[in-house]
Protein backbone atom coordinates (compact mmCIF):
# COMPACT_ATOMS: atom_id res chain seq x y z
CA UNK A 1 0.00 0.00 0.00
CA UNK A 2 2.75 2.34 1.05
CA UNK A 3 4.81 1.47 -2.01
CA UNK A 4 1.87 2.16 -4.32
CA UNK A 5 1.37 5.52 -2.65
CA UNK A 6 4.98 6.39 -3.22
CA UNK A 7 5.03 5.53 -6.90
CA UNK A 8 1.87 7.58 -7.38
CA UNK A 9 3.52 10.53 -5.62
CA UNK A 10 6.54 10.11 -7.83
CA UNK A 11 4.54 10.06 -11.05
CA UNK A 12 2.52 13.13 -9.97
CA UNK A 13 5.75 15.06 -9.34
CA UNK A 14 7.21 13.84 -12.60
CA UNK A 15 4.04 14.78 -14.45
CA UNK A 16 4.05 18.28 -12.98
CA UNK A 17 7.70 18.66 -13.93
CA UNK A 18 7.02 17.66 -17.53
CA UNK A 19 4.10 20.10 -17.76
CA UNK A 20 6.24 22.89 -16.34
CA UNK A 21 9.01 22.05 -18.76
CA UNK A 22 6.65 22.09 -21.73
CA UNK A 23 5.14 25.43 -20.74
CA UNK A 24 8.55 26.99 -20.25
CA UNK A 25 9.85 25.43 -23.45
CA UNK A 26 7.01 26.83 -25.56
CA UNK A 27 7.09 30.25 -23.95
CA UNK A 28 9.52 31.98 -26.35
CA UNK A 29 7.11 31.21 -29.22
CA UNK A 30 4.40 33.37 -27.68
CA UNK A 31 5.94 36.14 -25.71
CA UNK A 32 8.15 39.17 -25.93
CA UNK A 33 11.86 39.40 -25.40
CA UNK A 34 11.67 40.94 -21.96
CA UNK A 35 9.98 38.00 -20.28
CA UNK A 36 12.49 35.60 -21.81
CA UNK A 37 15.38 37.72 -20.56
CA UNK A 38 13.87 37.83 -17.09
CA UNK A 39 13.31 34.07 -17.17
CA UNK A 40 16.95 33.48 -18.13
CA UNK A 41 17.95 35.39 -15.01
CA UNK A 42 15.47 33.54 -12.84
CA UNK A 43 16.50 30.14 -14.21
CA UNK A 44 20.15 30.97 -13.69
CA UNK A 45 19.59 31.74 -10.03
CA UNK A 46 17.28 28.76 -9.67
CA UNK A 47 20.08 26.51 -10.95
CA UNK A 48 22.62 28.05 -8.58
CA UNK A 49 20.25 27.94 -5.61
CA UNK A 50 19.06 24.37 -6.12
CA UNK A 51 22.64 23.23 -6.77
CA UNK A 52 23.72 24.95 -3.56
CA UNK A 53 20.90 23.32 -1.62
CA UNK A 54 21.88 19.87 -2.90
CA UNK A 55 25.06 19.96 -0.83
CA UNK A 56 24.60 22.62 1.84
CA UNK A 57 20.93 21.91 2.60
CA UNK A 58 21.19 18.46 4.16
CA UNK A 59 24.80 18.65 5.38
CA UNK A 60 24.59 22.11 6.94
CA UNK A 61 28.01 23.04 5.50
CA UNK A 62 27.55 26.62 4.30
CA UNK A 63 29.47 26.82 1.05
CA UNK A 64 30.29 30.25 -0.33
CA UNK A 65 32.25 28.75 -3.23
CA UNK A 66 29.42 29.06 -5.76
CA UNK A 67 31.07 32.04 -7.46
CA UNK A 68 34.29 30.06 -7.92
CA UNK A 69 32.59 27.33 -9.97
CA UNK A 70 30.26 29.73 -11.74
CA UNK A 71 33.22 31.94 -12.64
CA UNK A 72 35.14 28.92 -13.85
CA UNK A 73 32.27 28.34 -16.27
CA UNK A 74 32.67 31.93 -17.47
CA UNK A 75 36.34 31.39 -18.21
CA UNK A 76 35.81 28.05 -19.92
CA UNK A 77 33.32 29.83 -22.15
CA UNK A 78 35.75 32.67 -22.81
CA UNK A 79 38.78 30.47 -23.50
CA UNK A 80 36.99 28.06 -25.83
CA UNK A 81 34.68 30.69 -27.29
CA UNK A 82 34.19 30.17 -31.01
CA UNK A 83 36.26 26.99 -31.18
CA UNK A 84 33.84 24.57 -29.60
CA UNK A 85 30.08 24.18 -30.20
CA UNK A 86 27.85 25.65 -27.47
CA UNK A 87 26.54 22.37 -25.97
CA UNK A 88 30.06 20.96 -25.75
CA UNK A 89 31.22 24.18 -24.12
CA UNK A 90 28.58 23.78 -21.42
CA UNK A 91 29.54 20.16 -20.77
CA UNK A 92 33.21 21.10 -20.66
CA UNK A 93 32.44 23.76 -18.04
CA UNK A 94 30.47 21.25 -15.96
CA UNK A 95 33.29 18.70 -16.15
CA UNK A 96 35.94 21.26 -15.17
CA UNK A 97 33.88 22.46 -12.22
CA UNK A 98 33.46 18.84 -11.13
CA UNK A 99 37.19 18.19 -11.18
CA UNK A 100 38.09 21.45 -9.42
CA UNK A 101 35.39 20.86 -6.79
CA UNK A 102 36.72 17.36 -6.13
CA UNK A 103 40.11 18.88 -5.34
CA UNK A 104 38.68 21.70 -3.23
CA UNK A 105 36.39 19.29 -1.40
CA UNK A 106 39.24 16.91 -0.62
CA UNK A 107 41.26 19.81 0.81
CA UNK A 108 38.53 21.22 3.02
CA UNK A 109 37.36 18.03 4.68
CA UNK A 110 38.85 18.93 8.01
CA UNK A 111 37.01 22.21 8.26
CA UNK A 112 33.65 22.49 9.91
CA UNK A 113 31.12 25.17 10.69
CA UNK A 114 32.14 28.75 10.15
CA UNK A 115 35.67 27.74 9.07
CA UNK A 116 34.29 26.00 6.01
CA UNK A 117 32.30 29.14 5.15
CA UNK A 118 35.40 31.34 5.55
CA UNK A 119 37.50 28.97 3.46
CA UNK A 120 35.08 28.93 0.56
CA UNK A 121 34.69 32.71 0.85
CA UNK A 122 38.45 33.18 0.58
CA UNK A 123 38.66 30.65 -2.23
CA UNK A 124 36.57 32.85 -4.52
CA UNK A 125 38.81 35.84 -3.86
CA UNK A 126 41.95 33.76 -4.29
CA UNK A 127 40.82 32.45 -7.66
CA UNK A 128 39.80 35.95 -8.69
CA UNK A 129 43.26 37.32 -7.89
CA UNK A 130 45.12 34.40 -9.41
CA UNK A 131 43.21 34.72 -12.68
CA UNK A 132 43.80 38.46 -12.64
CA UNK A 133 47.55 37.93 -12.23
CA UNK A 134 47.74 35.13 -14.79
CA UNK A 135 45.93 37.29 -17.34
CA UNK A 136 48.22 40.20 -16.56
CA UNK A 137 51.38 38.15 -17.03
CA UNK A 138 50.36 35.71 -19.77
CA UNK A 139 47.90 37.56 -21.96
CA UNK A 140 48.68 41.07 -20.72
CA UNK A 141 45.03 41.96 -20.60
CA UNK A 142 42.43 42.23 -17.92
CA UNK A 143 39.40 40.77 -19.60
CA UNK A 144 38.36 38.54 -22.45
CA UNK A 145 35.72 38.56 -25.14
CA UNK A 146 33.07 35.91 -25.46
CA UNK A 147 31.20 35.05 -28.61
CA UNK A 148 27.52 35.63 -27.99
CA UNK A 149 24.73 33.12 -28.54
CA UNK A 150 21.16 34.03 -29.49
CA UNK A 151 18.80 34.81 -26.59
CA UNK A 152 16.68 31.80 -27.46
CA UNK A 153 19.72 29.56 -27.53
CA UNK A 154 20.73 30.75 -24.07
CA UNK A 155 17.17 30.36 -22.83
CA UNK A 156 16.88 26.75 -23.94
CA UNK A 157 20.32 25.91 -22.65
CA UNK A 158 19.65 27.26 -19.17
CA UNK A 159 16.18 25.69 -19.19
CA UNK A 160 17.64 22.26 -19.89
CA UNK A 161 20.35 22.72 -17.26
CA UNK A 162 17.66 23.84 -14.81
CA UNK A 163 15.68 20.65 -15.32
CA UNK A 164 18.82 18.55 -15.09
CA UNK A 165 19.60 20.26 -11.79
CA UNK A 166 16.11 19.62 -10.42
CA UNK A 167 16.25 16.02 -11.60
CA UNK A 168 19.64 15.46 -10.00
CA UNK A 169 18.51 17.11 -6.76
CA UNK A 170 15.40 14.91 -6.65
CA UNK A 171 17.35 11.75 -7.37
CA UNK A 172 19.92 12.53 -4.70
CA UNK A 173 17.26 13.38 -2.12
CA UNK A 174 15.39 10.16 -2.73
CA UNK A 175 18.38 7.87 -3.03
CA UNK A 176 20.56 6.35 -0.35
CA UNK A 177 22.89 9.34 -0.73
CA UNK A 178 20.10 11.59 0.45
CA UNK A 179 19.85 9.65 3.69
CA UNK A 180 23.64 9.60 4.00
CA UNK A 181 23.83 13.38 3.55
CA UNK A 182 21.07 13.97 6.05
CA UNK A 183 22.73 11.82 8.67
CA UNK A 184 26.03 13.60 8.06
CA UNK A 185 24.26 16.90 8.66
CA UNK A 186 22.65 15.55 11.83
CA UNK A 187 25.71 13.92 13.37
CA UNK A 188 28.76 13.40 11.25
CA UNK A 189 30.59 11.18 13.74
CA UNK A 190 27.65 8.83 14.18
CA UNK A 191 27.23 8.65 10.41
CA UNK A 192 30.85 7.60 9.99
CA UNK A 193 30.56 4.90 12.64
CA UNK A 194 27.37 3.60 11.04
CA UNK A 195 29.25 2.73 7.87
CA UNK A 196 28.91 5.88 5.78
CA UNK A 197 31.99 6.93 3.85
CA UNK A 198 31.57 10.49 5.04
CA UNK A 199 34.52 11.92 3.13
CA UNK A 200 33.55 10.48 -0.22
CA UNK A 201 29.85 11.28 0.18
CA UNK A 202 30.58 14.92 1.00
CA UNK A 203 33.17 15.43 -1.71
CA UNK A 204 31.13 13.71 -4.40
CA UNK A 205 28.01 15.72 -3.59
CA UNK A 206 29.98 18.95 -3.42
CA UNK A 207 31.47 18.21 -6.84
CA UNK A 208 28.10 17.21 -8.29
CA UNK A 209 26.55 20.49 -7.18
CA UNK A 210 29.50 22.34 -8.74
CA UNK A 211 28.76 20.76 -12.16
CA UNK A 212 25.54 22.74 -12.47
CA UNK A 213 27.14 25.95 -11.22
CA UNK A 214 29.86 25.62 -13.85
CA UNK A 215 27.36 24.89 -16.61
CA UNK A 216 25.25 27.91 -15.63
CA UNK A 217 28.41 30.04 -15.74
CA UNK A 218 29.32 28.93 -19.25
CA UNK A 219 25.80 29.64 -20.50
CA UNK A 220 25.43 33.07 -18.90
CA UNK A 221 28.92 34.13 -20.01
CA UNK A 222 27.64 34.19 -23.57
CA UNK A 223 25.14 36.88 -22.55
CA UNK A 224 28.06 39.24 -22.10
CA UNK A 225 30.52 40.16 -24.76
CA UNK A 226 33.24 41.04 -22.26
CA UNK A 227 34.20 39.34 -18.99
CA UNK A 228 36.94 39.91 -16.46
CA UNK A 229 37.83 38.30 -13.10
CA UNK A 230 35.73 40.80 -11.16
CA UNK A 231 32.64 39.96 -13.20
CA UNK A 232 33.26 36.22 -13.23
CA UNK A 233 34.27 35.66 -9.61
CA UNK A 234 31.84 37.99 -7.89
CA UNK A 235 31.04 37.35 -4.23
CA UNK A 236 27.39 38.20 -4.87
CA UNK A 237 27.14 35.00 -6.86
CA UNK A 238 28.15 33.12 -3.73
CA UNK A 239 25.87 34.90 -1.29
CA UNK A 240 22.73 35.30 -3.37
CA UNK A 241 21.91 31.58 -3.74
CA UNK A 242 22.24 31.16 0.03
CA UNK A 243 19.87 34.04 0.60
CA UNK A 244 17.46 32.85 -2.05
CA UNK A 245 17.39 29.40 -0.50
CA UNK A 246 16.70 30.90 2.91
CA UNK A 247 14.18 33.31 1.42
CA UNK A 248 12.27 30.46 -0.18
CA UNK A 249 12.78 27.85 2.52
CA UNK A 250 14.89 24.71 2.27
CA UNK A 251 12.45 22.03 3.41
CA UNK A 252 11.88 20.87 -0.17
CA UNK A 253 12.91 21.82 -3.70
CA UNK A 254 9.97 24.15 -4.35
CA UNK A 255 11.29 26.60 -1.74
CA UNK A 256 14.67 27.31 -3.37
CA UNK A 257 13.11 27.69 -6.83
CA UNK A 258 10.43 30.00 -5.46
CA UNK A 259 13.07 31.95 -3.52
CA UNK A 260 15.21 32.38 -6.63
CA UNK A 261 12.23 33.49 -8.73
CA UNK A 262 10.86 35.99 -6.20
CA UNK A 263 14.25 37.39 -5.26
CA UNK A 264 15.32 37.84 -8.88
CA UNK A 265 12.02 39.46 -9.74
CA UNK A 266 12.16 41.85 -6.78
CA UNK A 267 15.75 42.69 -7.69
CA UNK A 268 14.68 43.37 -11.27
CA UNK A 269 11.90 45.75 -10.17
CA UNK A 270 14.21 47.57 -7.79
CA UNK A 271 16.87 47.88 -10.46
CA UNK A 272 14.49 49.45 -12.99
CA UNK A 273 12.59 51.69 -10.54
CA UNK A 274 15.39 52.82 -8.24
CA UNK A 275 18.70 52.24 -10.03
CA UNK A 276 20.59 54.35 -7.46
CA UNK A 277 19.03 52.85 -4.39
CA UNK A 278 18.91 49.31 -5.76
CA UNK A 279 21.78 47.84 -3.76
CA UNK A 280 20.76 49.65 -0.59
CA UNK A 281 17.17 48.41 -0.70
CA UNK A 282 18.47 44.99 -1.61
CA UNK A 283 20.56 44.92 1.55
CA UNK A 284 17.56 45.93 3.64
CA UNK A 285 15.36 43.25 2.03
CA UNK A 286 18.09 40.76 2.77
CA UNK A 287 18.33 41.61 6.44
CA UNK A 288 14.58 41.78 6.88
CA UNK A 289 14.05 38.41 5.24
CA UNK A 290 16.70 36.75 7.42
CA UNK A 291 15.19 38.39 10.49
CA UNK A 292 11.53 37.74 9.99
CA UNK A 293 11.33 34.62 7.87
CA UNK A 294 13.41 31.95 9.59
CA UNK A 295 11.74 29.24 7.50
CA UNK A 296 11.50 31.17 4.27
CA UNK A 297 8.49 32.33 2.27
CA UNK A 298 7.18 28.79 2.11
CA UNK A 299 7.51 28.40 5.87
CA UNK A 300 5.75 31.72 6.33
CA UNK A 301 2.92 30.64 4.03
CA UNK A 302 2.59 27.33 5.86
CA UNK A 303 2.46 29.18 9.17
CA UNK A 304 -0.32 31.46 7.93
CA UNK A 305 -2.18 28.46 6.51
CA UNK A 306 -1.89 26.69 9.85
CA UNK A 307 -3.28 29.71 11.67
CA UNK A 308 -6.19 29.99 9.23
CA UNK A 309 -7.00 26.36 9.81
CA UNK A 310 -7.36 27.06 13.52
CA UNK A 311 -4.03 26.42 15.09
CA UNK A 312 -3.80 22.69 14.42
CA UNK A 313 -0.61 21.07 13.19
CA UNK A 314 -0.11 21.24 9.46
CA UNK A 315 0.26 17.89 7.76
CA UNK A 316 3.91 17.28 7.09
Amino acid at each position, binding site marked *: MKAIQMTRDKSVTLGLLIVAFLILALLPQFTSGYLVTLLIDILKFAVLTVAWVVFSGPTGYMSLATAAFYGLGFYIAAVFSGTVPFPLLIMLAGASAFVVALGVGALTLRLRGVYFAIFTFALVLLVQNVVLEVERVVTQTRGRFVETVSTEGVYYAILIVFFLTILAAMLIRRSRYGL*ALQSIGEYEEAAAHSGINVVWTKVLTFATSAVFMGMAGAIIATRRTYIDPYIAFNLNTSFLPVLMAMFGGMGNLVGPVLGAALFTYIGEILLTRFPDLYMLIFGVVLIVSILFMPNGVLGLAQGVWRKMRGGGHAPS
Partner: protein
Amino acid sequence: MHLLEGEGVSRNFGGLVAVAGVDFYVDQGEILGLIGPNGAGKTTLFNLISAALPPSAGTISYEGSPITGLPPYKICRLGIARTFQTVKIFAHLPTVRNVMVGSLFGTGSRSSATEALRIADEELEFVELSSLRDVPAGDLTLASQKRLEVARALATQPKLLLLDEIMAGLTRNEVEEAMDLIARIRARGITVVMIEHVMHAIMGICDRIIVLDFGVKIAEGTPAEVAADKKVIEVYLGEEI
Protein backbone atom coordinates in the same frame (compact mmCIF):
# COMPACT_ATOMS: atom_id res chain seq x y z
CA MET B 1 42.84 -16.72 17.21
CA HIS B 2 41.12 -13.93 19.15
CA LEU B 3 38.30 -12.00 17.51
CA LEU B 4 39.90 -8.71 18.48
CA GLU B 5 43.38 -8.19 19.84
CA GLY B 6 45.34 -5.10 20.86
CA GLU B 7 49.06 -4.92 21.54
CA GLY B 8 50.67 -1.99 23.34
CA VAL B 9 47.82 0.28 22.37
CA SER B 10 48.58 3.87 23.43
CA ARG B 11 47.16 7.30 22.93
CA ASN B 12 48.45 10.69 24.07
CA PHE B 13 46.69 14.04 23.98
CA GLY B 14 49.52 16.54 23.98
CA GLY B 15 51.40 15.67 27.15
CA LEU B 16 48.52 13.75 28.64
CA VAL B 17 48.59 9.97 28.40
CA ALA B 18 45.04 8.67 28.02
CA VAL B 19 45.83 5.04 27.18
CA ALA B 20 49.28 3.64 27.95
CA GLY B 21 50.43 0.43 26.29
CA VAL B 22 47.31 -1.62 26.92
CA ASP B 23 47.27 -5.28 25.75
CA PHE B 24 43.84 -6.80 25.39
CA TYR B 25 41.88 -9.44 23.52
CA VAL B 26 38.25 -10.32 22.99
CA ASP B 27 37.11 -13.83 22.13
CA GLN B 28 34.20 -14.83 19.94
CA GLY B 29 30.95 -15.01 21.91
CA GLU B 30 32.06 -13.53 25.20
CA ILE B 31 30.92 -10.44 27.04
CA LEU B 32 33.92 -8.38 28.12
CA GLY B 33 33.49 -5.61 30.67
CA LEU B 34 35.69 -2.52 30.69
CA ILE B 35 35.67 -0.67 34.00
CA GLY B 36 37.67 1.96 35.80
CA PRO B 37 37.24 5.40 37.34
CA ASN B 38 36.34 8.43 35.22
CA GLY B 39 39.22 9.43 32.99
CA ALA B 40 40.75 5.94 33.07
CA GLY B 41 40.83 5.81 29.26
CA LYS B 42 37.91 3.47 28.63
CA THR B 43 36.12 5.59 26.03
CA THR B 44 39.46 6.50 24.45
CA LEU B 45 40.12 2.78 23.99
CA PHE B 46 36.73 2.42 22.26
CA ASN B 47 37.62 5.40 20.07
CA LEU B 48 40.90 3.72 19.12
CA ILE B 49 39.19 0.42 18.26
CA SER B 50 36.47 2.09 16.20
CA ALA B 51 39.02 4.42 14.55
CA ALA B 52 37.45 7.62 15.82
CA LEU B 53 41.05 8.34 16.84
CA PRO B 54 44.33 6.95 15.52
CA PRO B 55 46.50 5.30 18.20
CA SER B 56 49.81 6.99 19.08
CA ALA B 57 51.41 3.54 19.26
CA GLY B 58 50.44 -0.14 19.16
CA THR B 59 48.40 -2.27 16.82
CA ILE B 60 44.86 -3.58 16.85
CA SER B 61 43.92 -6.72 14.89
CA TYR B 62 40.49 -8.02 14.05
CA GLU B 63 40.03 -11.63 12.93
CA GLY B 64 43.78 -11.90 12.59
CA SER B 65 44.47 -8.89 10.37
CA PRO B 66 45.57 -5.43 11.49
CA ILE B 67 42.88 -2.74 11.32
CA THR B 68 44.84 0.29 12.56
CA GLY B 69 44.72 3.06 9.99
CA LEU B 70 41.38 2.07 8.49
CA PRO B 71 38.68 4.78 8.43
CA PRO B 72 35.67 4.41 10.80
CA TYR B 73 33.22 3.36 8.08
CA LYS B 74 35.45 0.44 7.07
CA ILE B 75 35.79 -0.71 10.66
CA CYS B 76 32.02 -0.66 10.86
CA ARG B 77 31.60 -2.63 7.63
CA LEU B 78 34.12 -5.21 8.85
CA GLY B 79 31.71 -5.97 11.68
CA ILE B 80 32.64 -3.73 14.62
CA ALA B 81 29.73 -1.51 15.64
CA ARG B 82 29.52 0.91 18.55
CA THR B 83 27.29 3.17 20.60
CA PHE B 84 28.32 6.45 22.18
CA GLN B 85 28.70 7.58 25.77
CA THR B 86 26.66 10.69 25.01
CA VAL B 87 24.00 9.63 22.52
CA LYS B 88 24.68 10.62 18.93
CA ILE B 89 21.44 10.05 17.09
CA PHE B 90 20.06 11.73 13.98
CA ALA B 91 17.60 13.80 15.96
CA HIS B 92 15.44 15.14 13.15
CA LEU B 93 15.11 11.84 11.31
CA PRO B 94 12.37 9.34 12.20
CA THR B 95 13.49 6.51 14.45
CA VAL B 96 13.29 3.90 11.70
CA ARG B 97 15.44 6.02 9.39
CA ASN B 98 18.12 6.22 12.09
CA VAL B 99 18.31 2.45 12.14
CA MET B 100 18.10 2.24 8.36
CA VAL B 101 21.35 4.22 8.09
CA GLY B 102 23.02 1.26 9.78
CA SER B 103 21.42 -1.43 7.63
CA LEU B 104 21.88 0.52 4.41
CA PHE B 105 25.50 1.54 4.79
CA GLY B 106 27.07 -0.46 7.59
CA THR B 107 26.67 -4.10 6.63
CA GLY B 108 29.58 -4.38 4.24
CA SER B 109 27.46 -5.68 1.40
CA ARG B 110 25.23 -3.53 -0.75
CA SER B 111 21.63 -4.04 0.23
CA SER B 112 18.51 -2.66 -1.42
CA ALA B 113 16.46 0.04 0.33
CA THR B 114 13.57 -2.38 0.88
CA GLU B 115 15.90 -4.94 2.44
CA ALA B 116 17.49 -2.25 4.62
CA LEU B 117 14.07 -1.07 5.76
CA ARG B 118 13.07 -4.63 6.65
CA ILE B 119 16.22 -5.08 8.75
CA ALA B 120 15.66 -1.70 10.40
CA ASP B 121 12.14 -2.70 11.43
CA GLU B 122 13.42 -6.03 12.74
CA GLU B 123 16.04 -4.34 14.88
CA LEU B 124 13.50 -1.82 16.18
CA GLU B 125 11.33 -4.77 17.15
CA PHE B 126 14.34 -6.38 18.83
CA VAL B 127 14.99 -3.33 21.04
CA GLU B 128 11.23 -2.87 21.55
CA LEU B 129 10.89 0.52 19.88
CA SER B 130 8.57 -0.50 17.02
CA SER B 131 5.75 1.66 18.34
CA LEU B 132 7.95 4.75 17.94
CA ARG B 133 9.22 3.98 14.45
CA ASP B 134 7.95 7.18 12.81
CA VAL B 135 8.68 9.57 15.68
CA PRO B 136 11.66 11.95 15.23
CA ALA B 137 14.50 10.40 17.23
CA GLY B 138 15.09 13.65 19.09
CA ASP B 139 11.68 13.32 20.76
CA LEU B 140 12.52 9.97 22.39
CA THR B 141 13.39 9.59 26.07
CA LEU B 142 17.05 9.06 26.97
CA ALA B 143 16.47 5.37 27.63
CA SER B 144 14.82 4.96 24.23
CA GLN B 145 17.56 6.93 22.48
CA LYS B 146 20.14 4.58 23.97
CA ARG B 147 18.14 1.61 22.70
CA LEU B 148 17.90 3.31 19.33
CA GLU B 149 21.69 3.56 19.17
CA VAL B 150 21.92 -0.14 19.95
CA ALA B 151 19.43 -0.88 17.17
CA ARG B 152 21.36 1.25 14.71
CA ALA B 153 24.55 -0.58 15.65
CA LEU B 154 22.86 -3.99 15.39
CA ALA B 155 21.47 -3.09 11.97
CA THR B 156 25.03 -3.05 10.63
CA GLN B 157 25.08 -6.83 11.34
CA PRO B 158 28.14 -6.68 13.60
CA LYS B 159 30.18 -9.56 14.96
CA LEU B 160 31.50 -7.31 17.72
CA LEU B 161 29.46 -4.65 19.50
CA LEU B 162 31.03 -1.91 21.63
CA LEU B 163 28.56 -0.52 24.17
CA ASP B 164 29.65 2.69 25.90
CA GLU B 165 27.69 3.19 29.14
CA ILE B 166 24.29 2.32 27.78
CA MET B 167 22.95 2.12 31.34
CA ALA B 168 24.15 5.51 32.57
CA GLY B 169 21.28 7.74 33.59
CA LEU B 170 18.70 4.96 33.42
CA THR B 171 16.22 4.04 36.18
CA ARG B 172 16.48 0.74 38.02
CA ASN B 173 13.83 -0.86 35.83
CA GLU B 174 15.44 0.42 32.66
CA VAL B 175 18.76 -1.06 33.80
CA GLU B 176 17.10 -4.45 34.17
CA GLU B 177 15.69 -4.12 30.66
CA ALA B 178 19.09 -3.16 29.30
CA MET B 179 20.68 -6.20 30.96
CA ASP B 180 18.05 -8.38 29.36
CA LEU B 181 18.76 -6.74 26.02
CA ILE B 182 22.49 -7.50 26.29
CA ALA B 183 21.72 -11.11 27.14
CA ARG B 184 19.53 -11.37 24.03
CA ILE B 185 22.29 -9.79 21.92
CA ARG B 186 24.71 -12.44 23.14
CA ALA B 187 22.14 -15.11 22.33
CA ARG B 188 22.35 -13.96 18.70
CA GLY B 189 26.04 -14.87 18.74
CA ILE B 190 27.30 -11.28 18.85
CA THR B 191 30.39 -10.59 20.93
CA VAL B 192 30.02 -7.64 23.31
CA VAL B 193 32.51 -5.28 24.92
CA MET B 194 30.84 -2.93 27.39
CA ILE B 195 31.95 0.06 29.40
CA GLU B 196 29.75 0.46 32.42
CA HIS B 197 29.62 2.10 35.82
CA VAL B 198 26.59 0.20 37.06
CA MET B 199 28.54 -2.43 39.00
CA HIS B 200 25.85 -4.99 39.70
CA ALA B 201 25.03 -5.05 36.00
CA ILE B 202 28.60 -5.54 34.87
CA MET B 203 29.35 -8.15 37.54
CA GLY B 204 26.16 -9.95 36.62
CA ILE B 205 26.58 -10.38 32.88
CA CYS B 206 30.28 -10.18 32.01
CA ASP B 207 32.39 -13.27 31.44
CA ARG B 208 35.58 -11.33 31.93
CA ILE B 209 36.52 -7.84 33.05
CA ILE B 210 39.44 -5.52 32.30
CA VAL B 211 40.12 -2.71 34.78
CA LEU B 212 41.82 0.47 33.60
CA ASP B 213 43.21 3.22 35.77
CA PHE B 214 45.05 6.30 34.39
CA GLY B 215 45.30 4.58 31.02
CA VAL B 216 46.98 1.46 32.40
CA LYS B 217 45.47 -2.00 32.70
CA ILE B 218 45.61 -2.81 36.41
CA ALA B 219 43.61 -6.02 36.52
CA GLU B 220 41.95 -8.59 34.30
CA GLY B 221 39.91 -11.70 35.06
CA THR B 222 36.51 -13.09 35.92
CA PRO B 223 34.16 -10.80 37.89
CA ALA B 224 35.00 -12.72 41.08
CA GLU B 225 38.77 -12.40 40.50
CA VAL B 226 38.57 -8.71 39.72
CA ALA B 227 36.35 -8.00 42.73
CA ALA B 228 38.95 -9.63 44.99
CA ASP B 229 41.94 -7.85 43.41
CA LYS B 230 43.83 -5.61 45.81
CA LYS B 231 44.65 -2.91 43.25
CA VAL B 232 41.05 -2.77 42.09
CA ILE B 233 39.80 -2.40 45.63
CA GLU B 234 42.27 0.43 46.16
CA VAL B 235 41.04 2.24 43.06
CA TYR B 236 37.43 1.79 44.03
CA LEU B 237 38.17 2.51 47.69
CA GLY B 238 35.00 2.54 49.69
CA GLU B 239 32.81 1.45 46.81
CA GLU B 240 31.03 -1.79 47.11
CA ILE B 241 31.90 -4.14 44.27
